[in-house]
Protein backbone atom coordinates (compact mmCIF):
# COMPACT_ATOMS: atom_id res chain seq x y z
CA UNK A 1 0.00 0.00 0.00
CA UNK A 2 1.27 3.51 -0.81
CA UNK A 3 2.23 5.43 2.33
CA UNK A 4 -0.11 8.40 2.72
CA UNK A 5 2.76 10.80 3.30
CA UNK A 6 4.18 10.13 -0.16
CA UNK A 7 0.84 10.97 -1.75
CA UNK A 8 1.37 14.54 -0.56
CA UNK A 9 3.84 14.98 -3.43
CA UNK A 10 1.04 14.22 -5.90
CA UNK A 11 -1.26 16.78 -4.36
CA UNK A 12 1.50 19.38 -4.31
CA UNK A 13 2.21 18.65 -7.97
CA UNK A 14 -1.47 19.05 -8.76
CA UNK A 15 -1.43 22.41 -6.98
CA UNK A 16 1.58 23.48 -8.98
CA UNK A 17 0.02 22.44 -12.30
CA UNK A 18 -3.34 24.05 -11.51
CA UNK A 19 -1.61 27.27 -10.41
CA UNK A 20 0.32 27.32 -13.69
CA UNK A 21 -2.87 26.74 -15.62
CA UNK A 22 -4.71 29.49 -13.73
CA UNK A 23 -2.06 32.01 -14.79
CA UNK A 24 -2.74 31.20 -18.43
CA UNK A 25 -6.50 31.80 -18.20
CA UNK A 26 -7.99 35.16 -19.07
CA UNK A 27 -11.50 34.44 -18.00
CA UNK A 28 -14.44 36.28 -19.47
CA UNK A 29 -17.88 34.81 -20.05
CA UNK A 30 -19.60 31.97 -18.20
CA UNK A 31 -17.57 29.07 -19.66
CA UNK A 32 -14.03 30.34 -19.10
CA UNK A 33 -14.94 31.82 -15.72
CA UNK A 34 -16.46 28.50 -14.63
CA UNK A 35 -13.29 26.70 -15.75
CA UNK A 36 -11.22 29.19 -13.76
CA UNK A 37 -13.41 28.60 -10.70
CA UNK A 38 -13.10 24.81 -11.03
CA UNK A 39 -9.30 24.87 -11.29
CA UNK A 40 -9.05 27.27 -8.36
CA UNK A 41 -11.27 24.85 -6.43
CA UNK A 42 -8.92 22.00 -7.38
CA UNK A 43 -6.01 24.06 -6.09
CA UNK A 44 -7.72 24.81 -2.77
CA UNK A 45 -8.95 21.27 -2.25
CA UNK A 46 -5.44 19.89 -2.86
CA UNK A 47 -4.14 22.32 -0.28
CA UNK A 48 -6.74 21.27 2.29
CA UNK A 49 -5.76 17.59 1.84
CA UNK A 50 -2.09 18.46 2.28
CA UNK A 51 -2.97 20.52 5.38
CA UNK A 52 -4.94 17.58 6.80
CA UNK A 53 -2.05 15.17 6.28
CA UNK A 54 0.51 17.65 7.62
CA UNK A 55 -1.38 18.44 10.84
CA UNK A 56 -2.29 14.87 11.71
CA UNK A 57 1.20 13.66 10.94
CA UNK A 58 2.67 16.40 13.13
CA UNK A 59 0.32 15.55 16.00
CA UNK A 60 1.32 11.89 15.77
CA UNK A 61 -2.23 10.84 14.96
CA UNK A 62 -3.43 8.32 12.41
CA UNK A 63 -4.16 9.83 9.00
CA UNK A 64 -7.55 8.53 7.93
CA UNK A 65 -7.03 7.08 4.47
CA UNK A 66 -10.78 7.30 3.94
CA UNK A 67 -10.75 11.10 4.18
CA UNK A 68 -7.76 11.37 1.85
CA UNK A 69 -9.54 9.09 -0.60
CA UNK A 70 -12.73 11.19 -0.42
CA UNK A 71 -10.65 14.29 -1.10
CA UNK A 72 -8.90 12.63 -4.02
CA UNK A 73 -12.27 11.54 -5.40
CA UNK A 74 -13.50 15.12 -5.09
CA UNK A 75 -10.47 16.29 -7.06
CA UNK A 76 -11.13 13.74 -9.79
CA UNK A 77 -14.77 14.87 -10.01
CA UNK A 78 -13.70 18.52 -10.20
CA UNK A 79 -11.19 17.76 -12.94
CA UNK A 80 -13.82 15.80 -14.85
CA UNK A 81 -16.33 18.62 -14.43
CA UNK A 82 -13.79 20.98 -16.03
CA UNK A 83 -14.39 19.02 -19.25
CA UNK A 84 -18.01 20.14 -19.06
CA UNK A 85 -16.88 23.78 -18.94
CA UNK A 86 -14.84 23.69 -22.14
Amino acid sequence: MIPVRRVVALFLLLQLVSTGYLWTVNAIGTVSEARFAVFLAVNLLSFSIVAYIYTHDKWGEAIARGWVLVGALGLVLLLLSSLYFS
Partner: protein
Amino acid sequence: MTEARNGRWGRLAAWFDTRLGLTYPLLRPAPRYSINPFYWLGALTVVAFLIQGVTGMMMMLYYVPSPSDAFSSTQYMIQSVYYGRFLQTVHLYTAYAMIMLAFMHMMRSYFVSVHKKPRELMWVVGMVMGFVTLGFGFTGYLLPWTVVSKSATDVGIGIIDALPRTISSFLTFLIIGAGGDATELLRFYDLHVVVLPAALLVLLTVKMYMLEAHGIAEPTTGPPIDQKASRSLPIFPDVTVYLLGLAAMFGSAMLLISAIFPLSLPPEYSPQLAAQLTAQPDWYFLWIYQILKISAFEGLGLPAALGLVTLIFVALLALPFIDRGHSRRIAERPIFVTIGLIFIGELFLLSYWGLESPGQVIPTYEAALLIVAIALLVGDCSFALYTVMGARGAPKPDSEKVSKTQGRFRTALAFVLLISGGAIAIGASLNAIVDLFLYGTSASSLVQLGLSTGFLGIVAFSTVFFMYRMELAGASLKRRLDWFEIGWSANDSR
Protein backbone atom coordinates in the same frame (compact mmCIF):
# COMPACT_ATOMS: atom_id res chain seq x y z
CA MET B 1 10.95 35.17 22.18
CA THR B 2 13.68 37.61 21.38
CA GLU B 3 17.11 36.08 21.54
CA ALA B 4 20.50 37.74 21.39
CA ARG B 5 21.30 38.24 17.71
CA ASN B 6 24.61 39.10 16.12
CA GLY B 7 25.34 41.40 13.25
CA ARG B 8 23.64 44.55 12.09
CA TRP B 9 20.61 42.79 10.52
CA GLY B 10 20.22 40.53 13.53
CA ARG B 11 20.15 43.51 15.88
CA LEU B 12 17.70 45.33 13.62
CA ALA B 13 15.42 42.28 13.55
CA ALA B 14 15.68 42.01 17.34
CA TRP B 15 14.78 45.70 17.69
CA PHE B 16 11.62 45.24 15.62
CA ASP B 17 10.81 41.98 17.36
CA THR B 18 11.00 43.62 20.80
CA ARG B 19 8.68 46.44 19.68
CA LEU B 20 6.22 44.48 17.56
CA GLY B 21 6.31 41.16 19.39
CA LEU B 22 6.51 39.25 16.13
CA THR B 23 7.85 36.04 17.66
CA TYR B 24 5.83 36.28 20.87
CA PRO B 25 2.93 33.86 21.24
CA LEU B 26 0.14 36.39 20.70
CA LEU B 27 -2.75 33.99 20.64
CA ARG B 28 -3.42 31.34 23.23
CA PRO B 29 -2.95 27.73 22.11
CA ALA B 30 -6.06 25.75 21.16
CA PRO B 31 -6.99 22.48 22.89
CA ARG B 32 -6.92 19.32 20.74
CA TYR B 33 -10.66 18.71 21.23
CA SER B 34 -11.36 21.94 19.36
CA ILE B 35 -9.93 20.50 16.14
CA ASN B 36 -13.40 19.97 14.74
CA PRO B 37 -15.12 22.06 12.06
CA PHE B 38 -18.06 22.78 14.38
CA TYR B 39 -15.74 24.68 16.70
CA TRP B 40 -14.62 26.92 13.86
CA LEU B 41 -17.94 27.98 12.31
CA GLY B 42 -17.27 31.51 13.56
CA ALA B 43 -13.80 31.45 11.97
CA LEU B 44 -15.34 30.29 8.69
CA THR B 45 -17.80 33.18 8.92
CA VAL B 46 -14.81 35.51 9.20
CA VAL B 47 -13.23 33.79 6.17
CA ALA B 48 -16.44 34.45 4.24
CA PHE B 49 -16.29 38.09 5.39
CA LEU B 50 -12.70 38.37 4.15
CA ILE B 51 -13.67 36.94 0.75
CA GLN B 52 -16.52 39.46 0.71
CA GLY B 53 -14.04 42.23 1.43
CA VAL B 54 -11.61 41.22 -1.32
CA THR B 55 -14.24 40.61 -4.01
CA GLY B 56 -16.19 43.69 -2.90
CA MET B 57 -13.15 45.97 -3.20
CA MET B 58 -12.53 44.69 -6.71
CA MET B 59 -16.16 45.33 -7.64
CA MET B 60 -15.88 48.87 -6.25
CA LEU B 61 -13.42 49.64 -9.05
CA TYR B 62 -16.26 49.43 -11.57
CA TYR B 63 -19.49 50.00 -9.64
CA VAL B 64 -21.14 53.43 -9.83
CA PRO B 65 -23.61 54.12 -6.98
CA SER B 66 -26.19 56.21 -8.83
CA PRO B 67 -29.65 55.13 -10.01
CA SER B 68 -28.78 55.84 -13.64
CA ASP B 69 -25.49 53.90 -13.66
CA ALA B 70 -25.75 51.27 -10.92
CA PHE B 71 -27.37 48.62 -13.12
CA SER B 72 -25.36 49.40 -16.25
CA SER B 73 -22.05 49.35 -14.33
CA THR B 74 -22.99 46.01 -12.78
CA GLN B 75 -23.96 44.65 -16.19
CA TYR B 76 -20.77 46.01 -17.74
CA MET B 77 -18.76 44.20 -15.06
CA ILE B 78 -20.51 40.93 -15.88
CA GLN B 79 -20.28 41.20 -19.64
CA SER B 80 -17.07 43.06 -20.38
CA VAL B 81 -14.66 42.81 -17.45
CA TYR B 82 -12.31 39.87 -17.08
CA TYR B 83 -13.43 37.77 -14.07
CA GLY B 84 -16.30 40.24 -13.56
CA ARG B 85 -19.09 37.67 -13.42
CA PHE B 86 -16.86 35.36 -11.40
CA LEU B 87 -16.24 38.05 -8.77
CA GLN B 88 -19.91 38.94 -8.52
CA THR B 89 -20.99 35.32 -8.31
CA VAL B 90 -18.45 34.50 -5.60
CA HIS B 91 -19.44 37.70 -3.75
CA LEU B 92 -23.10 36.70 -3.83
CA TYR B 93 -22.71 33.07 -2.76
CA THR B 94 -20.15 33.88 -0.09
CA ALA B 95 -22.59 36.45 1.30
CA TYR B 96 -25.23 33.73 1.51
CA ALA B 97 -22.70 31.38 3.08
CA MET B 98 -21.70 34.06 5.59
CA ILE B 99 -25.29 34.46 6.75
CA MET B 100 -25.83 30.69 6.90
CA LEU B 101 -22.54 30.11 8.76
CA ALA B 102 -23.35 32.90 11.24
CA PHE B 103 -26.74 31.25 11.87
CA MET B 104 -25.15 27.81 12.30
CA HIS B 105 -22.54 29.30 14.64
CA MET B 106 -25.29 30.92 16.71
CA MET B 107 -27.38 27.74 16.95
CA ARG B 108 -24.37 25.58 17.76
CA SER B 109 -23.36 28.04 20.49
CA TYR B 110 -26.92 27.93 21.81
CA PHE B 111 -27.11 24.13 21.94
CA VAL B 112 -23.73 23.73 23.65
CA SER B 113 -24.46 26.68 26.00
CA VAL B 114 -21.49 28.81 25.07
CA HIS B 115 -23.60 31.77 26.18
CA LYS B 116 -23.31 30.80 29.85
CA LYS B 117 -20.94 32.23 32.43
CA PRO B 118 -18.35 33.65 31.79
CA ARG B 119 -19.13 34.10 28.07
CA GLU B 120 -22.41 36.03 28.31
CA LEU B 121 -21.00 39.17 26.69
CA MET B 122 -19.37 37.13 23.93
CA TRP B 123 -22.84 35.94 23.02
CA VAL B 124 -24.24 39.49 23.08
CA VAL B 125 -21.41 40.80 20.87
CA GLY B 126 -21.85 37.80 18.55
CA MET B 127 -25.56 38.54 18.22
CA VAL B 128 -24.85 42.17 17.34
CA MET B 129 -22.40 40.87 14.73
CA GLY B 130 -25.22 38.70 13.40
CA PHE B 131 -27.47 41.78 13.07
CA VAL B 132 -24.68 43.60 11.24
CA THR B 133 -24.37 40.61 8.89
CA LEU B 134 -28.09 40.83 8.13
CA GLY B 135 -27.54 44.55 7.55
CA PHE B 136 -24.92 43.65 4.94
CA GLY B 137 -27.51 41.49 3.22
CA PHE B 138 -30.20 44.18 3.32
CA THR B 139 -27.97 47.00 2.04
CA GLY B 140 -26.11 44.92 -0.54
CA TYR B 141 -29.30 43.57 -2.08
CA LEU B 142 -30.27 47.01 -3.41
CA LEU B 143 -26.96 47.90 -5.04
CA PRO B 144 -27.37 46.19 -8.48
CA TRP B 145 -30.57 48.27 -8.88
CA THR B 146 -32.55 45.46 -10.42
CA VAL B 147 -36.33 45.40 -10.39
CA VAL B 148 -36.25 42.52 -7.88
CA SER B 149 -33.81 44.14 -5.46
CA LYS B 150 -35.30 47.65 -5.57
CA SER B 151 -38.89 46.42 -5.11
CA ALA B 152 -37.97 44.20 -2.16
CA THR B 153 -35.94 46.97 -0.52
CA ASP B 154 -38.81 49.44 -0.95
CA VAL B 155 -41.13 47.03 0.84
CA GLY B 156 -38.57 46.73 3.64
CA ILE B 157 -38.25 50.50 3.93
CA GLY B 158 -42.05 50.88 3.88
CA ILE B 159 -42.28 48.64 6.94
CA ILE B 160 -40.11 51.07 8.91
CA ASP B 161 -43.03 53.51 8.97
CA ALA B 162 -44.95 51.11 11.19
CA LEU B 163 -42.28 51.32 13.89
CA PRO B 164 -42.58 53.79 16.81
CA ARG B 165 -42.08 57.35 15.56
CA THR B 166 -38.64 57.97 17.15
CA ILE B 167 -37.16 54.74 15.81
CA SER B 168 -38.73 55.12 12.36
CA SER B 169 -37.48 58.74 12.07
CA PHE B 170 -33.95 57.70 13.01
CA LEU B 171 -33.92 54.71 10.63
CA THR B 172 -35.42 56.76 7.82
CA PHE B 173 -32.76 59.44 8.30
CA LEU B 174 -30.05 56.77 8.42
CA ILE B 175 -30.95 54.84 5.30
CA ILE B 176 -32.89 57.23 3.12
CA GLY B 177 -31.70 60.66 4.18
CA ALA B 178 -33.61 63.48 2.52
CA GLY B 179 -35.38 60.97 0.28
CA GLY B 180 -35.17 60.11 -3.39
CA ASP B 181 -33.59 57.20 -5.21
CA ALA B 182 -30.14 58.77 -5.52
CA THR B 183 -29.77 59.46 -1.80
CA GLU B 184 -31.20 56.07 -0.93
CA LEU B 185 -28.74 54.21 -3.14
CA LEU B 186 -25.79 56.28 -1.95
CA ARG B 187 -26.74 55.75 1.72
CA PHE B 188 -27.07 52.02 1.18
CA TYR B 189 -23.71 51.96 -0.60
CA ASP B 190 -22.02 53.90 2.21
CA LEU B 191 -23.52 51.65 4.83
CA HIS B 192 -22.52 48.55 2.87
CA VAL B 193 -18.91 49.43 2.12
CA VAL B 194 -17.89 51.69 5.02
CA VAL B 195 -20.12 51.74 8.09
CA LEU B 196 -21.05 48.07 8.41
CA PRO B 197 -17.55 46.67 7.63
CA ALA B 198 -16.04 49.10 10.18
CA ALA B 199 -18.65 48.10 12.78
CA LEU B 200 -18.06 44.41 12.11
CA LEU B 201 -14.28 44.79 12.42
CA VAL B 202 -14.61 46.59 15.77
CA LEU B 203 -17.02 43.95 17.07
CA LEU B 204 -14.77 41.17 15.78
CA THR B 205 -11.80 42.65 17.63
CA VAL B 206 -13.81 42.83 20.86
CA LYS B 207 -15.01 39.24 20.43
CA MET B 208 -11.52 37.95 19.64
CA TYR B 209 -10.23 39.69 22.75
CA MET B 210 -12.88 37.97 24.86
CA LEU B 211 -12.10 34.64 23.18
CA GLU B 212 -8.46 35.10 24.17
CA ALA B 213 -9.55 35.83 27.74
CA HIS B 214 -11.95 32.91 28.14
CA GLY B 215 -10.52 30.36 25.71
CA ILE B 216 -12.49 27.78 23.77
CA ALA B 217 -15.41 26.22 25.64
CA GLU B 218 -15.14 22.55 26.56
CA PRO B 219 -17.31 20.02 24.73
CA THR B 220 -20.71 19.20 26.22
CA THR B 221 -21.22 15.79 24.66
CA GLY B 222 -19.21 12.60 24.50
CA PRO B 223 -16.85 11.14 27.09
CA PRO B 224 -15.00 13.26 29.63
CA ILE B 225 -11.96 15.04 28.22
CA ASP B 226 -8.78 13.07 28.74
CA GLN B 227 -5.23 14.32 28.70
CA LYS B 228 -4.84 13.61 24.99
CA ALA B 229 -7.94 15.62 24.04
CA SER B 230 -7.05 18.57 26.25
CA ARG B 231 -3.42 18.94 25.16
CA SER B 232 -2.58 22.33 23.73
CA LEU B 233 -1.74 22.95 20.10
CA PRO B 234 0.15 26.12 19.17
CA ILE B 235 -1.77 28.60 17.05
CA PHE B 236 1.14 28.76 14.62
CA PRO B 237 1.70 26.67 12.61
CA ASP B 238 -0.60 23.85 13.80
CA VAL B 239 -3.99 25.49 14.23
CA THR B 240 -3.27 28.04 11.48
CA VAL B 241 -2.58 25.28 8.95
CA TYR B 242 -5.68 23.40 10.11
CA LEU B 243 -7.81 26.55 9.69
CA LEU B 244 -6.30 27.33 6.31
CA GLY B 245 -7.16 23.79 5.20
CA LEU B 246 -10.71 24.24 6.44
CA ALA B 247 -10.98 27.64 4.74
CA ALA B 248 -9.62 26.14 1.52
CA MET B 249 -12.27 23.44 1.60
CA PHE B 250 -14.96 26.05 2.17
CA GLY B 251 -13.52 28.16 -0.64
CA SER B 252 -13.47 25.25 -3.08
CA ALA B 253 -17.14 24.51 -2.27
CA MET B 254 -18.02 28.17 -2.94
CA LEU B 255 -16.10 28.11 -6.22
CA LEU B 256 -17.81 24.94 -7.37
CA ILE B 257 -21.24 26.41 -6.63
CA SER B 258 -20.20 29.60 -8.48
CA ALA B 259 -19.12 27.54 -11.50
CA ILE B 260 -22.36 25.57 -11.63
CA PHE B 261 -24.76 28.46 -10.94
CA PRO B 262 -23.24 31.64 -12.40
CA LEU B 263 -24.99 34.90 -11.59
CA SER B 264 -27.54 36.20 -14.04
CA LEU B 265 -28.86 39.69 -13.51
CA PRO B 266 -32.65 40.37 -13.42
CA PRO B 267 -33.91 43.35 -15.47
CA GLU B 268 -33.11 46.92 -14.46
CA TYR B 269 -35.49 48.67 -12.09
CA SER B 270 -38.25 50.79 -13.55
CA PRO B 271 -41.55 51.75 -11.89
CA GLN B 272 -43.49 50.09 -14.76
CA LEU B 273 -41.69 46.77 -14.36
CA ALA B 274 -41.90 46.98 -10.58
CA ALA B 275 -45.69 47.36 -10.81
CA GLN B 276 -45.90 43.96 -12.53
CA LEU B 277 -43.73 42.21 -9.96
CA THR B 278 -44.61 40.76 -6.57
CA ALA B 279 -41.86 41.94 -4.26
CA GLN B 280 -40.15 39.25 -2.25
CA PRO B 281 -37.09 39.58 -0.01
CA ASP B 282 -33.95 37.43 -0.17
CA TRP B 283 -34.17 34.03 1.54
CA TYR B 284 -32.79 35.12 4.94
CA PHE B 285 -35.65 37.61 5.45
CA LEU B 286 -38.40 35.30 4.17
CA TRP B 287 -39.47 34.21 7.68
CA ILE B 288 -40.10 37.84 8.68
CA TYR B 289 -41.87 38.44 5.36
CA GLN B 290 -44.14 35.47 6.04
CA ILE B 291 -45.00 36.66 9.56
CA LEU B 292 -45.93 40.07 8.14
CA LYS B 293 -48.25 38.39 5.62
CA ILE B 294 -50.43 36.73 8.27
CA SER B 295 -53.86 38.33 7.94
CA ALA B 296 -54.04 39.28 11.63
CA PHE B 297 -50.95 41.43 11.11
CA GLU B 298 -52.19 43.19 7.98
CA GLY B 299 -52.87 46.93 8.17
CA LEU B 300 -53.30 48.03 11.76
CA GLY B 301 -51.74 44.79 13.03
CA LEU B 302 -48.37 45.57 11.44
CA PRO B 303 -46.86 47.15 14.58
CA ALA B 304 -47.80 43.98 16.48
CA ALA B 305 -45.96 41.83 13.89
CA LEU B 306 -42.91 44.08 14.09
CA GLY B 307 -43.16 43.91 17.88
CA LEU B 308 -43.15 40.11 17.65
CA VAL B 309 -40.08 40.07 15.39
CA THR B 310 -38.32 42.58 17.67
CA LEU B 311 -39.20 40.41 20.66
CA ILE B 312 -37.55 37.40 18.98
CA PHE B 313 -34.37 39.40 18.34
CA VAL B 314 -34.37 40.82 21.89
CA ALA B 315 -34.86 37.33 23.34
CA LEU B 316 -31.91 36.09 21.30
CA LEU B 317 -29.79 39.02 22.43
CA ALA B 318 -30.69 38.56 26.09
CA LEU B 319 -30.49 34.76 26.05
CA PRO B 320 -27.61 34.49 28.57
CA PHE B 321 -29.77 36.33 31.10
CA ILE B 322 -32.82 34.14 30.38
CA ASP B 323 -31.18 30.70 30.25
CA ARG B 324 -29.36 30.88 33.58
CA GLY B 325 -29.08 27.19 34.41
CA HIS B 326 -25.61 25.99 35.41
CA SER B 327 -25.49 22.87 33.28
CA ARG B 328 -24.05 23.10 29.77
CA ARG B 329 -24.69 19.49 28.78
CA ILE B 330 -27.34 18.91 26.10
CA ALA B 331 -28.67 15.86 27.96
CA GLU B 332 -29.47 18.03 30.96
CA ARG B 333 -31.20 20.89 29.10
CA PRO B 334 -34.25 19.27 27.48
CA ILE B 335 -36.45 22.36 27.60
CA PHE B 336 -34.00 24.84 26.07
CA VAL B 337 -32.77 22.33 23.51
CA THR B 338 -36.38 21.63 22.48
CA ILE B 339 -37.10 25.37 22.24
CA GLY B 340 -34.02 25.73 20.00
CA LEU B 341 -35.17 22.90 17.75
CA ILE B 342 -38.67 24.37 17.52
CA PHE B 343 -37.11 27.76 16.62
CA ILE B 344 -35.18 26.16 13.74
CA GLY B 345 -38.28 24.26 12.60
CA GLU B 346 -40.38 27.44 12.59
CA LEU B 347 -37.72 29.38 10.68
CA PHE B 348 -37.57 26.71 7.98
CA LEU B 349 -41.36 26.47 7.78
CA LEU B 350 -41.92 30.22 7.54
CA SER B 351 -39.05 30.72 5.06
CA TYR B 352 -40.20 27.93 2.74
CA TRP B 353 -43.80 29.06 3.01
CA GLY B 354 -42.80 32.65 2.28
CA LEU B 355 -40.89 31.50 -0.78
CA GLU B 356 -43.85 29.51 -2.08
CA SER B 357 -46.54 32.14 -1.48
CA PRO B 358 -45.22 35.50 -2.72
CA GLY B 359 -47.61 38.36 -2.04
CA GLN B 360 -50.29 36.04 -0.71
CA VAL B 361 -52.02 36.97 2.55
CA ILE B 362 -52.10 33.99 4.90
CA PRO B 363 -55.30 33.36 6.89
CA THR B 364 -54.57 33.59 10.61
CA TYR B 365 -56.06 30.17 11.44
CA GLU B 366 -53.93 28.51 8.75
CA ALA B 367 -50.75 30.16 10.03
CA ALA B 368 -51.58 29.31 13.65
CA LEU B 369 -52.36 25.71 12.68
CA LEU B 370 -49.09 25.15 10.87
CA ILE B 371 -46.94 27.00 13.41
CA VAL B 372 -48.46 25.05 16.29
CA ALA B 373 -48.25 21.78 14.30
CA ILE B 374 -44.52 22.26 13.67
CA ALA B 375 -43.95 23.16 17.32
CA LEU B 376 -45.80 20.02 18.41
CA LEU B 377 -44.07 17.81 15.87
CA VAL B 378 -40.59 18.99 16.83
CA GLY B 379 -41.50 19.03 20.52
CA ASP B 380 -42.84 15.46 20.35
CA CYS B 381 -39.75 14.22 18.49
CA SER B 382 -37.44 15.92 20.98
CA PHE B 383 -39.48 14.55 23.88
CA ALA B 384 -39.36 11.02 22.44
CA LEU B 385 -35.61 11.32 21.78
CA TYR B 386 -34.90 12.45 25.33
CA THR B 387 -37.03 9.62 26.68
CA VAL B 388 -35.25 7.03 24.51
CA MET B 389 -31.83 8.42 25.41
CA GLY B 390 -32.85 8.41 29.08
CA ALA B 391 -34.08 4.81 28.75
CA ARG B 392 -30.80 3.79 27.11
CA GLY B 393 -28.95 4.70 30.26
CA ALA B 394 -27.68 8.17 29.58
CA PRO B 395 -26.41 9.70 32.82
CA LYS B 396 -29.29 11.15 34.79
CA PRO B 397 -28.29 14.19 36.83
CA ASP B 398 -29.86 15.16 40.12
CA SER B 399 -31.69 17.99 38.40
CA GLU B 400 -33.67 15.42 36.39
CA LYS B 401 -35.17 13.73 39.46
CA VAL B 402 -38.68 15.03 39.68
CA SER B 403 -41.05 15.61 42.56
CA LYS B 404 -44.67 14.42 42.53
CA THR B 405 -45.93 17.87 41.60
CA GLN B 406 -43.48 18.11 38.72
CA GLY B 407 -44.42 14.59 37.68
CA ARG B 408 -48.10 15.45 37.58
CA PHE B 409 -47.37 18.56 35.57
CA ARG B 410 -45.17 16.71 33.07
CA THR B 411 -47.71 13.93 32.62
CA ALA B 412 -50.50 16.40 32.04
CA LEU B 413 -48.35 18.44 29.67
CA ALA B 414 -47.38 15.35 27.68
CA PHE B 415 -51.04 14.33 27.34
CA VAL B 416 -52.09 17.83 26.31
CA LEU B 417 -49.33 17.94 23.70
CA LEU B 418 -50.19 14.51 22.33
CA ILE B 419 -53.94 15.11 22.26
CA SER B 420 -53.64 18.53 20.61
CA GLY B 421 -51.04 17.21 18.18
CA GLY B 422 -53.29 14.28 17.31
CA ALA B 423 -56.29 16.57 16.82
CA ILE B 424 -54.35 18.82 14.46
CA ALA B 425 -52.92 15.84 12.54
CA ILE B 426 -56.35 14.22 12.14
CA GLY B 427 -57.89 17.54 11.07
CA ALA B 428 -55.16 18.22 8.52
CA SER B 429 -55.35 14.66 7.15
CA LEU B 430 -59.14 14.89 6.74
CA ASN B 431 -58.76 18.29 5.12
CA ALA B 432 -56.25 16.86 2.63
CA ILE B 433 -58.51 13.89 1.85
CA VAL B 434 -61.51 16.17 1.27
CA ASP B 435 -59.35 18.36 -0.99
CA LEU B 436 -58.34 15.30 -2.98
CA PHE B 437 -61.97 14.29 -3.48
CA LEU B 438 -63.24 17.76 -4.28
CA TYR B 439 -60.45 19.15 -6.41
CA GLY B 440 -58.75 16.04 -7.72
CA THR B 441 -55.17 14.88 -7.28
CA SER B 442 -52.57 17.62 -7.13
CA ALA B 443 -48.99 17.70 -5.93
CA SER B 444 -49.72 20.12 -3.08
CA SER B 445 -52.66 18.12 -1.69
CA LEU B 446 -50.63 14.90 -1.90
CA VAL B 447 -47.75 16.57 -0.05
CA GLN B 448 -50.21 17.87 2.56
CA LEU B 449 -51.70 14.41 2.95
CA GLY B 450 -48.27 12.82 3.26
CA LEU B 451 -47.09 15.34 5.84
CA SER B 452 -50.25 15.23 7.93
CA THR B 453 -50.46 11.43 7.99
CA GLY B 454 -46.74 11.28 8.77
CA PHE B 455 -47.31 13.70 11.64
CA LEU B 456 -50.28 11.61 12.78
CA GLY B 457 -48.06 8.52 12.75
CA ILE B 458 -45.45 10.25 14.89
CA VAL B 459 -48.08 11.38 17.38
CA ALA B 460 -49.53 7.84 17.49
CA PHE B 461 -46.07 6.37 17.98
CA SER B 462 -45.29 8.88 20.72
CA THR B 463 -48.58 8.09 22.47
CA VAL B 464 -47.96 4.34 22.40
CA PHE B 465 -44.39 4.85 23.51
CA PHE B 466 -45.50 7.15 26.32
CA MET B 467 -48.14 4.68 27.50
CA TYR B 468 -45.61 1.88 27.61
CA ARG B 469 -43.06 4.04 29.37
CA MET B 470 -45.65 4.67 32.06
CA GLU B 471 -46.62 0.97 32.14
CA LEU B 472 -50.20 1.92 31.41
CA ALA B 473 -50.91 -0.37 28.51
CA GLY B 474 -51.53 -3.61 30.42
CA ALA B 475 -52.85 -2.12 33.64
CA SER B 476 -56.37 -1.78 35.01
CA LEU B 477 -58.42 1.37 34.58
CA LYS B 478 -58.01 2.23 38.25
CA ARG B 479 -54.25 1.99 38.01
CA ARG B 480 -54.30 4.08 34.85
CA LEU B 481 -56.23 6.78 36.67
CA ASP B 482 -53.85 6.54 39.61
CA TRP B 483 -50.90 6.95 37.30
CA PHE B 484 -52.53 9.83 35.54
CA GLU B 485 -53.09 11.45 38.90
CA ILE B 486 -49.62 11.08 40.30
CA GLY B 487 -47.54 11.18 37.10
CA TRP B 488 -44.08 9.67 37.36
CA SER B 489 -42.43 10.01 40.68
CA ALA B 490 -38.84 10.38 41.82
CA ASN B 491 -38.62 6.60 42.14
CA ASP B 492 -39.81 5.90 38.64
CA SER B 493 -37.02 4.77 36.38
CA ARG B 494 -37.73 7.22 33.61
